[in-house]
């Protein structure tokens, strides 16, 4: 993952937290690769959608 890709991931995660439910991307954790990836909402993917965690936030 390049620095730019990493920063893009962070910005999308930030956006999902601010604008809950309005992101066009889903955050997916692929347990096989162990990576987080962004996919277009509704598209096919491997792994678990965890967007809810970014939307609901952290303590």
């Amino acid at each position, binding site marked *: *993952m390049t620095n730019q890709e990493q920063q893009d991931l962070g910005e999308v995660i930030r956006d999902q937290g601010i604008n809950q439910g309005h992101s066009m991307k889903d955050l997916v954790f692929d347990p096989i690769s162990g990576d*987080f990836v962004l996919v277009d909402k509704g598209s096919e993917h491997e792994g678990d959608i965890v967007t809810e965690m*970014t939307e*609901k*936030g*952290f*303590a």
Partner: protein
Amino acid sequence: MMDEKRLLAEKRVLANKLPPSSYKFMDMDTNNPYIVMAAKTNCGNIYTIRIDLVDFPNSKPEAFVRKMLQTKSGVPMSGASAAMHTLTSKYGFTQICHYADSAWTTMESIYKVYIKCRLWLEMYDLHLKTGKNMDYYLNHQH
């Protein structure tokens, strides 16, 4: 302490999701059971997470990175910090603030806590590059 039925359910989920060599239950017959889990971030940095299971799932488990992390500016992440989503350290380890007490239910799983910790670590890696606080990336629960 977790009953046998719940422990089996948790083990089943983890076995279904993660490589068996990436986690290990520890001291399960003692008063301080915990699980140690490996986590590799997208950038390839490797961390170890400890999740204490003393009163799991009845209360939110404490979760730690098994080292004392530092901020980009070199400050040990040992205290409670809303900006960095940390709680007071224990065992000399940085404690991750994952679920708010008010958001915790007995339906949450070890796997879900692991994913939150893994996401926290992803943003920690990014913090080290950008210097932005963790709560720039990770929203606060209300």
